[in-house]
């Protein structure tokens, strides 16, 4: 059995407001995979991560980590686990470097902080107070924070949130490398893009329930809009026409455009979270 996490009928209710954020979810995360929790805002992704990282305790159902009940572990559990939070988690009056060194010393195994900071482009700013960092810088520091102890399992909650495309790319590359070196990842996100580029398997979650566990490819085929949007030039104007992907080769209008017009762009329908959400639940995402 190669499951790192085995979660069965997990339920959690926030006592404060009585919100049942997780409603009986079952899934497992295999060793060496990047497992995505994909779902709209308020779906219960962060709550699930907080339960698996043992920050929320009063859950029902069973969670096994490496074959043993999660509750049977003491705090040495965290030696091999890295946690990336969805919000900045730093001392604002300490510098980036001071923050990292403080947290790092609490672990037995240490990654190379300077190398990590260089990689995510924070090295130049390492001696500035975190309070002066931009949102994207704080999120990159969060990511470095998660890797401080050279973990084997990585929890990442909205890891690309607030990052520009260049930095998002760097972070995604690092996640892929982490996996190649044998690491396992739980990635929570509402971005279809992240899931497609990174995840081996995904659970689509909404309203605290898992609606579907699948691969990004299957999810896309099942829920994607099977259509092609073509922009072409005609009578000195750009026109847009959308075609069904099925039996495209027999579509006269399409063939006419391809053969006789100047085509400007051609896009197959991109699956968006909205598409999946609408098809699974019959509602629109309120984000």
């Amino acid at each position, binding site marked *: 059995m190669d499951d790192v996490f085995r979660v069965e009928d997990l339920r959690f209710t926030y006592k404060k407001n009585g919100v049942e954020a997780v409603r009986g979810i079952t899934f497992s995360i295999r060793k060496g995979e990047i497992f995505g929790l994909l779902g709209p805002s308020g779906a219960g992704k962060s709550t699930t991560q907080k339960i698996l990282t043992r*920050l929320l305790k009063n859950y029902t159902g069973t969670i096994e980590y490496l074959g043993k009940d999660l509750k049977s572990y003491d*705090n040495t*559990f*965290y030696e091999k686990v890295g946690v990336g939070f969805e919000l900045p988690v730093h001392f604002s009056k300490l510098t980036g470097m001071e923050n990292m060194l403080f*947290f790092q010393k*609490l672990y037995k195994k240490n990654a190379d902080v300077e190398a990590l900071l260089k990689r995510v482009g924070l090295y130049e700013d390492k001696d500035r107070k975190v309070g002066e960092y931009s949102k994207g810088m704080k999120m990159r520091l969060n990511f470095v924070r998660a890797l401080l102890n050279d973990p084997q399992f990585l929890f990442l909650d909205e890891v690309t949130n607030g990052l520009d495309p260049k930095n998002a790319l760097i972070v995604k590359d690092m996640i892929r490398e982490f996996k190649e070196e044998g690491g396992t990842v739980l990635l929570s996100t509402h971005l279809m893009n992240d899931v497609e580029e990174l995840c081996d398997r995904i659970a689509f979650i909404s309203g605290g329930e898992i609606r579907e566990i699948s691969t990004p490819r299957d999810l896309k085929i099942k829920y994607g809009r099977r259509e092609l949007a073509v922009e072409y030039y005609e009578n000195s104007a750009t026109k847009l026409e959308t075609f069904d992907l099925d039996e495209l080769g027999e579509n006269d209008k399409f063939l006419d455009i391809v053969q006789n017009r100047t085509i400007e762009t051609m896009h197959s329908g991109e699956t968006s979270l909205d598409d999946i959400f609408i098809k699974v639940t019959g509602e629109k995402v309120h984000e």
Partner: protein
Amino acid sequence: MNNFMVLLKGEFQRLIKYNIVQVGFGVSVLWVLVLFLIGRDQAADFVPLFIFMDAALMTILLIGAGLFYERQENTLKSLMITPSKMGHIIASKLVSAVYIALQSALFIGLLAYFFFDATVNFAYLLPFTLLIALSHAIIGYTIAVLVEDFPTLLATLMLYMIVFAFPSIFYALDLFGGLWEIVLVVSPTHASFLLIDFAFGHDVSTTLIVVSALYLLLLAFLLARYVVFPKYIEKAVRE
């Protein structure tokens, strides 16, 4: 370095970076200025009161506000996912709060001794200040983990002072009325006040001192064991 030492070092680093040591020292200086204004004749009478306010009330405020501030910065969550033990995390914060109180007590005590002819027994003052700061730090935590938000924390602290601290202050200033007698029996602040008074050579019976010290110790233990420990994680994690 073991985790407790790392945590403790971190706490002290932050006491300085967040200007808490500096502010604490500033408050002590303020007290001393007030003592000068009061004048040599009566200043010695006020010294125990000021040390008591620093060790008891400032500590509650420091710990209570500190918890909310850290919760806001989400740093407690980040600490909770390290291999550190809960007990070590809380203990490191208690030690740093106690340190601030000791620093003030020593500063005010020394000045009182040299400039205001106060009778100070440092062999009592320092351990008693430690005990007072420790128990009040735990009281501060107790309040902080039981209330929902910062305004409620402040309101509760005010209430705490009205119920427990003011009677002791009135008592110290000889404004004591019989009405408060009942409250004084169970008031941790009053127990603290007796200890400080004793360290300044005032006439307090040995039995009362022993009872006060044991009472503070027991209270600190019970609150830590049954309120602060079980509630701390829950409080630290919530957004």
